[in-house]
């Protein structure tokens, strides 16, 4: 049976009738498959939660041990389980630690919800794996051909270059607390930056969680009222929302940087008051998105949040059956 007959979009989110289960629902539901730990995909208060062990750990770190009402169901990548009349398996999405694509199979047809994903190398998570299916559901956050993320090493070199040029300025980098933060730290370490990296309080718990999964972040320390004034020439990471916050005022001579796929668009960087834009994204860029459609090879593509019109158009040009799946509620500005 074609997935359109057993998948529908409800106000709570995407719903699989055959398994009576939602994928990344926006409101509390009885049964939920969670692709990854970002807050717009993983919410608290569901009855039964199906996710990777890492994603469940992230949800516990964010919402407490009682984020679910009935059960947690950890799945290893590739493991198959049955929910109602569907078979579910999770596969690596390469987006952040624990991120997964959800593959659902029912009455001889299959659909893959890729969640958010990227194809670039990221030492903090398992790389994306193309999974065979009849319908592939893809995100479209950066689905315009102007989005081509440059190599991560180049952007990290930009940051370290600025640090050498302005050793008197505190380099404050806005990064998402989950995923981006840890990836940027790992990339700095890989570029040979050995010094303590200072963190906004909001980053701490998730960094500890990454380290508990064996991801080495080197020496990190929290920014405190006591050490803040001594951070000239240091790298400080904070959530994007804290860049222009009172919090950052105590840091000495701040040079504002931000690591995000949006930094590619000059006006966006400027709107946010960013002096040093670093184009670093945990989402697929245009080349990765189009490559993925061909790697997965599903005859039909559904496009969710983001710039769906361009990707639907491209997919149709390439001979795929493609349509937009309007999902209000996901952050189409997430980076």
């Amino acid at each position, binding site marked *: 049976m074609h997935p359109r007959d057993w998948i529908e979009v409800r106000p709570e989110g995407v719903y699989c009738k055959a398994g009576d289960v939602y994928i990344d629902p926006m409101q509390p539901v009885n049964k939920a498959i969670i692709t990854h730990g970002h807050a717009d995909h993983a919410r608290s208060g569901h009855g039964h939660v199906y996710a990777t062990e890492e994603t469940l750990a992230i949800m516990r770190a964010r919402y407490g041990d009682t984020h679910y009402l009935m059960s947690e169901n950890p799945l290893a990548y590739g493991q198959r389980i049955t929910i109602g009349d569907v078979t579910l398996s999770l596969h690596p999405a390469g987006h952040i630690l624990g991120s997964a694509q959800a593959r659902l199979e029912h009455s001889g047809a299959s659909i893959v919800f890729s969640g958010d994903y990227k194809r670039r190398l990221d030492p903090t998570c398992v790389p994306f794996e193309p999974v065979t299916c009849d319908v592939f559901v893809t995100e479209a956050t950066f689905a*315009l*051909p*102007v*989005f081509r993320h440059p*190599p991560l090493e180049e952007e990290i070199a930009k940051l370290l270059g600025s640090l050498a040029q302005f050793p008197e300025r505190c380099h404050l980098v806005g990064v998402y607390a989950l995923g981006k933060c840890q990836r940027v730290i790992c990339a700095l370490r890989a570029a040979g930056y050995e010094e303590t990296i200072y963190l906004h309080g909001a980053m701490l718990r998730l960094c500890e969680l990454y380290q508990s999964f064996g991801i080495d972040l080197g020496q990190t320390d929290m920014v405190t009222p006591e050490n803040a004034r001594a951070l000239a020439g240091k790298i400080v990471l904070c959530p994007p929302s804290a860049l222009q916050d009172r919090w950052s005022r105590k840091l000495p001579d701040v040079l504002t940087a931000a690591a995000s796929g949006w930094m590619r668009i*000059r*006006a966006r960087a400027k709107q946010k008051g960013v002096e040093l834009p670093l184009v670093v994204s945990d989402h697929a860029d245009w080349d990765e998105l189009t490559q993925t459609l061909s790697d997965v090879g599903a005859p039909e593509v559904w496009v969710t949040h983001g*710039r769906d019109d*361009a990707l639907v158009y491209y997919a149709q040009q390439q001979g795929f059956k493609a349509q937009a799946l309007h999902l209000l509620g996901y952050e189409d500005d997430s980076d």
Partner: protein
Amino acid sequence: MKAFSKLLERLYFEPATSSKEKLLRDYFATTPDPDRGYAVAIIGNALSLPNFKRGMVLDLIKARTDPQLLAMSYDYVGELSETVAHLWPAPAVAPNDPDLPALHEVVEALRHMPKVQLPDYIAALLDRMTSPERWALLKIGSGSLRIGVSARLLKQVLARYGGQPIERVETLWHGIDPPYEELFAWLEGRADAPAVEERLTFTPVMLAHPLEAKDHGLITPDAYAAEWKYDGIRVQCVHSAVGRALFTRTGDEISNSFPDAVAHLNFHAVLDGELVVQRGAALGSFNDLQQRLGRKNPSGKLQDSHPAAMIVYDALMLEGEDVRHLPYEQRRTLLQAALETYHPVGISLSPQIPWHSFDQLEAARASVDNLSVIEGLMLKRKDSAYIAGRPTGPWYKWKINPKRADAVLMYAQRGSGKRSSFYSDFTFGLWRDGELLPIGKAYFGFTDAELVELDKWVRHNTVKTFGPVREVKKALVFEVAFDAVHRSSRHKSGYALRFPRISRIRWDKPADEADQMSLLESLLTGET
């Protein structure tokens, strides 16, 4: 070219003027002639490259990308140069060619190469460049950099680079040409100042601050004279032994568009005033003036139906003498005497408004409410010299209170510049017989946070799309402020707003409670 690209990239993102200055001075100190002079010309928008056209860039990219994806990308990015810089097909690893030509080689090629060879030359350069370098090259062609360096700042930096007063640089400015080698030679103490006396030059003008409530106490009848503030175009009219010219307040020459106005000045002077359309004693509205704007070499018929005149309010030079150092009252007396001596047609003196108490000023300001050609009061310190720039204190402008209407958002389009990639150009309308009719368009008046909210609202409430335009659900009310309403046959509603802006977003107000079209009829001004 590499150094220039890096400079642009840094300047673009650098918010602090002091840091911008440092970047520019470092660049001047480390870059040889004539590269640095061409960089000054490009940043100061003084370089004319008539063959490097937007259309040519469009053709180049059209030949290399899918038209639909190009349109969507351009719509999103909101700026052609950046769109092309990002879209230009290049190897996955961006090229980083150390042998890119120097800036002056590029500029000279762009200026002198035969037109037919230009597209290939530019394409070959773009192939060798990184995305930021492509952006820099394309911005040279587009003529407007928007990197937050005004012509004024550029001149200030040059002045400080050479330890010279800004006034000397500004006076020289309109008489020298890129690549400014003689300017740099003077600034670096290697030569005398370039001679420019032979040319008609623009003298920087004096600007006013808006009058705020906290400043009302400063305004006393002994210290300040009052004049009307006209809703025309601020101009500087120059007549010397060399000839005559008309400049805008930013120094753009518009003599060709207003030959009638230029001809009026029948004595040697540099006058500061307002360009208006005037028929006999009656002043035309800004709408009338708009018919003349941008028309180079207007027809005799248009000059007859929309004759240009000047209301002058200050003199910088009179009969060869610089009078800027004299106090306002004295300059005005001299100007009045000159006008009485030479009786120029089409030039009149801006009258003073007699006043003894602040109440009278407030009354005068309230009384202009129905005159579309006046937009408020000017308050000028009687003892003040004519100072270039916007000094605080000598001149205040006090605009009339705006009119307001609650209008319904109808269409949205993505903006450009700093609002690019957001739906931020809004068309709104008022009700007439249960139907919404558009009355105007505005793209500012909201905060950055509101911009993000509005963009989201538009994307989630789109009913239909027409190319880049989205028609939205008729559900969001804007309080729109504007200076005046005119009749207009160009709009279906029959009205046009002057200077509309969004003063408040009424998330709370139901659309059917927005205003009726009849409101505009009651606010109508300036019949034409």
